[in-house]
């Protein structure tokens, strides 16, 4: 057992951190708020291979494990890189998730092409769990299609449909970097994969989202600690005051517990663990949903009045944390799932 990042994984994390610092610094990311998804940058991101990590080598992917994907997504989450990142990686991996993915009835664009396009960044895909009634669809104006998961499988919905349905963009999306559009009802779509693939899809989606949340929790914590060292009141750095110092200690504590859960889930999904993957991912998503928002809120508090401004990034961490909480099942859903396991055990 060696439950620490190996050298390659550490190098991967550093590489992605450097990429984000160079090409997705917070100024650039913020500028993207006005024009939604920058397809040029998206393709650039795709070309670094981040969406091909878990795509099989035979299909031109990198053939890596979910552990590597999690290491990369942590950095993307931390840099607040916008866009349907998890959906892109999942779609590009679809050929590897299940052999039946291609065998199910389709017409028009087939899953192989969609997967290829997602890996290269030429096709942008959104992911959604089926829900009744009116709902908001992320990046509706920019995606080429949606993949909706439900108990029966995965369903493809073309961008054409979104246009025809008159999806109405919200003037003020909660997260300025995650534009959303209201649709009154989701269409059925064309089935592109069976139910067992849908289960794996949701599981891996929740895993990648937990990794993004880990990046947010850890980014918000570092940001608060940095500020606490430099902001002075009463003649000393505020981080010298116990109330602030102890808050920061609680933040890093949440981060480290979450990190253990996310890494454990990833290696378990990779088959390098002893537990059940669906349980491990549930654990990660539960902790991610509470830790990311809690750390982001704490960062707002440590920043005082500055924390409530548009200018300081603290609110961006918090808003993205709230967005991610709803992706691929929220904390409450998974908590209920674990409790039912306990109650029947």
């Amino acid at each position, binding site marked *: *057992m*060696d*439950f*620490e*990042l*190996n050298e390659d*994984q550490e190098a991967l994390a550093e590489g992605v951190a450097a990429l984000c610092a160079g090409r997705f610094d917070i100024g650039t990311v913020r500028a993207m708020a006005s024009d939604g998804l920058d397809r040029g940058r998206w393709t650039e991101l795709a070309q670094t291979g981040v969406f091909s990590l878990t795509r099989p080598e035979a299909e031109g992917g990198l053939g890596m494990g979910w*552990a590597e994907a999690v290491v990369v997504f942590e950095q993307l989450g931390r840099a607040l890189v916008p866009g349907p990142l998890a959906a892109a990686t999942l779609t590009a991996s679809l050929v590897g998730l299940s052999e039946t993915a291609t065998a199910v009835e389709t017409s028009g664009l087939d899953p192989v092409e969609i997967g290829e396009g997602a890996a290269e960044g030429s096709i942008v895909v959104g992911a959604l769990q089926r829900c009744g009634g009116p709902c908001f669809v992320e990046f509706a104006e920019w995606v080429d299609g949606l993949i909706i998961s439900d108990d029966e499988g995965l369903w493809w919905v073309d961008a054409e449909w979104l246009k025809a349905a008159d999806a109405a963009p919200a003037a003020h999306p909660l997260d300025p970097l995650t534009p959303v559009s209201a649709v009154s009802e989701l269409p059925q779509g064309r089935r592109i994969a069976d139910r067992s693939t849908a289960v794996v899809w949701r599981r891996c989606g929740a895993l990648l989202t937990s990794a993004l949340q880990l990046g947010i929790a850890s980014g918000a914590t570092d940001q608060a*600690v940095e500020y*606490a*060292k430099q902001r002075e009141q009463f003649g*000393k*750095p505020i*981080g*010298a*005051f*116990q109330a*602030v*110092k*102890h808050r*920061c*200690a*609680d933040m*890093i*504590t*949440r981060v*480290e*517990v*979450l990190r*253990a*859960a996310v*890494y*454990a889930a*990833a*290696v*378990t999904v990779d088959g*390098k*663990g*002893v*537990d059940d993957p669906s*349980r*491990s991912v*549930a*654990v*990660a998503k*539960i*902790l991610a949903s*509470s830790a990311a928002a809690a750390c982001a809120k704490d960062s707002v508090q440590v920043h005082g009045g500055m924390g409530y401004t548009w200018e300081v990034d603290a609110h961006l961490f918090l808003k993205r944390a709230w967005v991610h909480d709803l992706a691929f099942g929220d*904390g*409450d859903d*998974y*908590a*209920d*799932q*674990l*409790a*039912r396991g*306990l*109650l029947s*055990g």
Partner: protein
Amino acid sequence: MDLCYTEDEEAFRDELRTWLKGALPNVGPPPTDHTDLEARRAYDTRWQRILYEAGYAGVHWPAEFGGRGSTPTEHLIFLEETERAGAPYVGVNFVGQLHAGPTLIAEAAPEQQRAHLAPILRGDHVWCQGFSEPGSGSDLASLTTRAFDDGDHYVVTGQKIWTSFAQVADYCELLVRTDPDVPKHRGITWLIMPMDLPGIEIRPIVTALGASEFAEMFLDEVRIPKVNRVGGHNDGWRVTMVTFAFERGTAFISEIIASQRLLADLAKVAQKVTRGSARASDDAEIRRRLGRLEAELDALWSLTKRNVSQAQRTGMVGPGGSVFKLAYADTRKRMSDLAEQILGRAGLAIGDTLDLGELDHVGERLYTLTLTIAAGTSEIQRTIVGERLLGLPKDR
């Protein structure tokens, strides 16, 4: 990065499981009377002897000192399997096995090691820890129990408090003030004190649980031979810190496994008690709280494995241990809150489960109060994490 065990580790686990299956039926149930410490000592040391005879005593101690020389991962497996099998907890052997013993291994003279290490492993000697004083808890280095130099003896006068199992201990790892005129950390000495010396008086303290596992210890001109000093004169603080550096991330393994069992039992209770017209387990909010706690315990188990892996690589866990302790105490306190909510009026008596579950959730609820106090309070841990891990400035 992986969570797989090697073939050797799996073999170690299998062998241990087989042995536990044969050994445990002969151990018998633990004493039920919380106040009978002699019975507790007899039970715990008997188990230690059984471990010793099977070659499992001091799994993590180096082989040259009679241990098994196992890696941190094997120690993790040992603690996991013994707890899962329901084997006795380390109990009164805690200080000897996990604190005094390792200190002697690192710092003591060969004669001292010969005299003390084997009896600890065999369960012949029970040790206690005489560190805290009425005036010195979190600020341990301010301790004032005074030791005067008298030829080949130290003459010790003062008071210790919260000394767990002092009533049934044979030896005490004692911190004394040997020089009051230098900065506080530099005038402390570490001594081995036999508990049968004249001048030692022990008064049990009754805990909130109604038990008396710790005591006050009054020392009145106790003559301790200088050959019992470990490390140099005035060098005791360093010796104490060396001991803390021994932590390999394994400290709470038994607790985590026991907590998982406790939560599973609480889930059973929730299926038996009614809230309004339905069972507590039908309440979505109660279910979510159960699920969240289950997730937290699972994550803490993973964090343990991370700390153990780090120890295996670098030999240390550092502030990762403090992070763990903070999170664990917090989770356990929320588990207690949930137990309170589920039990309702069935929680008004300690140790009487009314056949709702197998475990004493009320007693455990009181026990969790110690988790934010003993071995460095949560406030002190937060300061350690803030300053050493995050590099925040000291408030001085």
